[in-house]
């Protein structure tokens, strides 16, 4: 009987397409929007993925990676002397403005790396040599910087070109690929001392300290030792990651937008599929009643309806997920809009779409269970 149940549904082209379309749309809306949302949250942790260090030592009050409070230069040495620390290096992170050839200004994320080790260096160097960054007035810029800072020029910025960074000349010695920052600022790398030259003088210039535990020390133990000895805050990379994500979750409107989009997708899917399926059952009630008269049990009819509902669910979900994967690939290839597709996301939308189908089926099932087989004799 089940293949006939499917034929009954497929035979009603309009409703079938409506159901599949509605569920595809709901899947897309929920999955794609959440993917963008996750991608956006991921962008808030771009410092972590770009600098990569096991321990992050920051001011005691720092709650997340994008709100750093200045430390004293001497703090690096205090961390270095903590037992359990293998090494510690200073990093200077600041937003500075770059002047474009057309006279406009653009903010950039200036990262000053430890002169000796260059720890925190760009993840992927596309062109140039890393060591060149130690030359006077030299910087390595990311691809976004090339795009952003080239406006007003005949040719895009390239190795050897210069631009004005906070009224001082910066020469490009390398082009790298870096994860995009939440604020959309391009990354510009220089050495720590060079960065201090670019930036206006301030009393405290150290942003954070990257460190690694000594052999035999666990990350957590080393972090605890640093905190106890220095009074600063020491995060493991993972803790800093989640603290940052969580901070944006709690302190911005993003989650609300995110939850309302999911709710919207769910409601749209529910309304379209629920009411289409209900109409389908309603229009077929006479035939379902006839099947009942011919001895089909409620159980059989319920299973037929569930099959119909879940088949359109699977097809709609499949199409929706495919479209989102296509969108996601394009987004990731271009670098924007932000997009992240952890497996939990399609799994969660799968469950939501299936619950839409279950609820739609329940609407129809209630009607079918109640129908008297004797209705088949009534005109």
């Amino acid at each position, binding site marked *: 009987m089940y293949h006939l149940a499917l034929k009954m549904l497929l*035979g009603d082209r309009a409703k079938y397409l409506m159901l599949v379309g509605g569920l595809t749309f709901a899947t897309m809306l929920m999955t794609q929007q959440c993917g963008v949302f996750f991608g956006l949250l991921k962008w808030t942790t771009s410092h972590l993925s770009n600098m990569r260090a096991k321990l992050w030592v920051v001011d005691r009050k720092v709650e997340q990676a994008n709100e750093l409070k200045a430390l004293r230069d001497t703090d690096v040495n205090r961390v270095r002397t903590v037992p359990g620390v293998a090494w510690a290096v200073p990093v200077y992170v600041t937003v500075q403005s770059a002047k474009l050839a057309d006279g406009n200004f653009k903010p950039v994320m200036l990262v000053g790396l430890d002169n000796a080790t260059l720890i925190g260096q760009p993840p992927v160097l596309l062109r140039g040599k890393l060591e060149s960054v130690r030359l006077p007035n030299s910087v390595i810029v990311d691809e976004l910087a090339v795009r952003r800072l080239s406006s007003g020029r005949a040719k895009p910025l390239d190795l050897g070109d210069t631009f004005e960074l906070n009224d001082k000349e910066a020469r490009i010695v390398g082009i790298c690929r870096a994860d995009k920052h939440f604020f959309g600022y391009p990354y510009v790398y220089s050495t720590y001392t060079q960065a201090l030259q670019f930036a206006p003088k301030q009393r405290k210039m150290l942003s954070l300290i990257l460190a690694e535990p000594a052999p035999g020390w666990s990350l957590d133990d080393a972090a605890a030792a640093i905190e106890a000895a220095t009074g600063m805050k020491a995060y493991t990379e993972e803790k800093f990651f989640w603290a940052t994500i969580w901070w944006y979750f709690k302190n911005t409107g993003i989650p609300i937008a995110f939850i309302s989009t999911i709710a919207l997708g769910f409601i749209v899917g529910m309304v379209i599929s629920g009411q289409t399926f209900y109409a389908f059952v309603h229009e077929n009630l006479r035939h379902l009643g006839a099947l*009942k*008269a011919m001895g089909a049990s409620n159980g059989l009819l319920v299973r037929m309806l569930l099959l119909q509902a879940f088949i359109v669910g699977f097809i709609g979900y499949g199409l929706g997920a495919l479209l989102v994967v296509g969108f996601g690939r394009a987004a990731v290839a271009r670098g924007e809009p932000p997009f992240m597709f952890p497996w939990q996301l399609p799994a969660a939308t799968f469950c939501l779409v299936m619950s839409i189908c279950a609820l739609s089926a329940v609407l129809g099932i209630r009607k079918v269970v109640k129908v008297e087989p004797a209705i088949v004799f009534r005109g």
Partner: protein
Amino acid sequence: MSATPTNPPALAVHVRGVSKTFGTGETAVTALNGVDFTARQGELLMIVGPSGCGKTTLLSVIAGTLNFDCGELDVFGSPLHRLKPREITEFRKRHVGFIFQAFNLIPTLTCIENICVPLLIGGVSRRVAERKALALLDEVGLGSRGHERPTNLSGGQQQRIAIARALVHEPRLIICDEPTSALDKDTGAHIMDLLRNAARNPNRCVIVVTHDNRVFKYADRLTEMEDGRVQRVHDQGGNYDLSE
């Protein structure tokens, strides 16, 4: 025709004092009011009477599709008044074939698939069901139309498909409500021929509710109803004249 006075055939349906009231209070309608009724094995029995006299209600009760308020009902030895709903469903599945005035074929399925339905509900495999359906399709003279949708067929052809569907699982009781009312005279006659044929099986009983006096002549016996009761039983359909 098949009733021989010397050796009366066994009862297929035995209804004793069955009543059925729809609704309650002011709007209550008593559709059946203490009906006594019998149908024999191997006969084609017609139930006739004016509109609203309770024919369809009685047919629904006999078919096991409608609960009744009081009375007793045996169908081929099964006491329906004592069976649980699940057992009644099982009973319908095995023993009852249905033919309706509006055919009630499923428009999105082909004719063969429609005919298969009672077998598939009964758990028969798809292959076996389709083979039997094809045989029945030949029997009703529509062997070449099996893969078409019922909506492509004329009313008479659709009713023939419905007859094939009602017979395919070889039920003992065939229930027909106004099977010819939507058809012209010749088409109706063809349908009645098929039903007449089905009733030749001595283990079977065909009950036809109708107010179509053109087909009375096909009945072995005629039960005349009025106001929710059986008024008379006529032994020869052909001699009965509704125009009186």
